[in-house]
């Protein structure tokens, strides 16, 4: 933004804050430097109109509550003003430790849009006289990254209450499938991002990994048409969509090998010369099979047969027999 435009916009804000009356565009044109007095030509008037429109949009984008209205029956066109009570940040007083917590919170986001927004919020709090130290090292630093291309469009759709459609690839599916969703919320759980909502095609609540959304997110309805169920716990919905690890397999680990598996397994105490027996909990037998095969000949699954068979099946394919 040019310095001239910035100067004009600041003057516009000051002018509209200082008035209780609605000011017509013409009055604003003469009161705010930078719009040019014009020579009365239609061309100059047209240039002013365009400039003023752009300025109004810019201020509204910044969150300046620009009011339009008429002062009375005498007014023939809408005027503008900014209500001080709507413009100003209400009084906030934070103690030093509360301000430190806010500073730490603002550093949570690694994604561009959210960290920029947090930075803007801090700037306003500082302008309200609060000393927020955004560099203090508390020794513990949470970071949340949101680089999935689908993140921003999904969040925007949730906030607008607008249905969306997109192509979604399930983990083991060959081809992506089209989905149409009434979005309820965007959730980060265990370091991964999900969209939670009502799947219109399957007529059920569904969770979608944002990283599996392919291509663009498209509008599939009007804003304000999504109803989020009362009292829904979005995180719990995501947690419930992941299979629980409620089953137990028994494995034999060769002496001294597969340290990584030993750390998450429980020894049964039944050890022999072939190795030591452990119990491993799992949800999906295929996923456990993949994990155990990773340890090669160091680990042999003993029970249950579904895991054993999954492993031998995969190994035969690998060996090519």
């Amino acid at each position, binding site marked *: 933004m040019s*310095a001239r435009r*910035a*100067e004009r*916009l*600041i*003057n516009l804000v*000051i002018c509209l804050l*200082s008035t209780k009356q609605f000011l017509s565009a013409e009055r604003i044109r003469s*009161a705010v*430097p930078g719009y040019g007095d014009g020579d009365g030509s239609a061309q100059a008037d047209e240039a002013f109109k365009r400039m003023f429109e752009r300025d109004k949009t*810019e201020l509204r984008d*910044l*969150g300046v509550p620009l009011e339009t209205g008429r002062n009375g029956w005498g007014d023939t066109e809408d005027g503008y003003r900014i209500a001080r009570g709507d*413009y100003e*940040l*209400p009084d906030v007083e934070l103690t030093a430790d509360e301000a430190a*917590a*806010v500073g730490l*919170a*603002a550093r949570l*986001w690694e994604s561009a849009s959210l960290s*920029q927004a*947090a930075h803007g*919020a*801090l700037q306003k709090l*500082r*302008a*309200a006289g609060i000393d927020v130290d955004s560099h203090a090292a508390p*020794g*513990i*630093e*949470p*970071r*949340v*990254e949101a680089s999935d291309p689908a993140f921003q469009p999904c969040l925007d759709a949730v906030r607008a209450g607008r249905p969306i459609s997109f192509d979604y690839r399930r983990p083991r599916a060959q081809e992506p499938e089209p989905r149409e969703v009434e979005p309820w919320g*965007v*959730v*980060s*759980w265990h*370091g991964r991002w999900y969209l939670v909502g009502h799947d219109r095609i399957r007529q059920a609540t569904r969770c979608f990994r944002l*990283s599996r959304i392919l291509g663009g997110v498209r509008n599939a309805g009007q804003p304000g048409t999504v109803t*989020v169920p009362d009292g829904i716990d979005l*995180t719990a919905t995501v947690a419930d969509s992941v299979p629980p690890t409620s089953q137990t397999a028994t494995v*034999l680990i060769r002496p001294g090998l597969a*340290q*990584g598996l030993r*750390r998450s397994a429980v020894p049964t105490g*039944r050890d*022999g*010369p072939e190795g030591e027996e452990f119990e491993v909990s799992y949800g999906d037998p295929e996923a456990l099979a993949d994990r155990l*095969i*990773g340890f*090669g*000949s160091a*680990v*042999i699954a*003993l029970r249950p047969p579904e895991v054993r068979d999954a*492993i*031998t099946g995969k190994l035969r394919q690998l*060996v090519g027999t």
Partner: protein
Amino acid sequence: MTTERLPRLLALIPYLQARPGIAVAEAATDLGVSEVQLRKDLELLWMCGLPGHGPGDLIDLSFEGDSVTVTFDAGIHRPLRLTADEALSLLVALQTLAEVPGLAERDVVDRALAKIEAAAGTQAKARSGLTVNLQDRDTQRPDSDEHLALIRRALADRRALDLTYYVAGRDETTERVVDPMRLLLVEGRSYLEAWCRRSVDVRLFRLDRIDAVQLLDEAAVVPTEARPRDVSTGVFQPSAAHDAVTLRLAAGARWVADYYPCERVSEVGPDLEVVLRVADPRWVRRLVLGLGTEVSVLDPPELAEEVRREAAAALAGYTQGIQSSA
């Protein structure tokens, strides 16, 4: 960034008014701009004011040495209220912090949250659509709380730690003395970032892979050349020094491109072709074995051969009829 100039200009007058006589350099640091830029901002504001724009209408600043004071604000008494995005980013972040066990004082975060929520007014509603849960994705060891307490104490008292640590890449447990730098919660995992005296470098240690922690009487000495790792692009940073492995992933293995940082990802028919930088060949061998027929190793050929050999050895274990050692 020029797009951020207008909000900064609007914030600047109330900011200075709250801090009469502040040094220009200090204000610049606080607002995240150079001193030169801040002086330009002040010059611009000096030209702005109430309609009429006479001497008594303009924003007035008085400079004394390197410090500045606002003597007339032309009606910009307070900062602009928070936008919906600003309210969302701060409130969701505070809510997230409040739910991390043992992070900051919970009641302090709750109080800050309530105050910011009140200040955000109707904009606070926006936050309900975004939820972040920082709970660790891995099952924690039963003694992990104890480990965390010791690490926090070491950070607070600046003491060195003796770690027993499981290195997944080599599938072995190691012993080392480290000088703690910070605790990081990122990508759903907790890490201790520390100067590792054994590797003479900064290292990230996953908390769920720490088997034992001992607080040493020794002071932690983090060398001045130790730089905190930039984790904005992921925890693992592939380097050209690591070996490149090229894999072709079928549908069932496409998740690999989601989970591990790939140097190159390209669609080849229905499959994905990826290049991974691998710090330890044993790690990639385990990964490829576990993926079964969903993956083929394009390069290096030795890896493909090794995987086949290992699979044959593992299969032999099953066909030899091992049922139970009991």
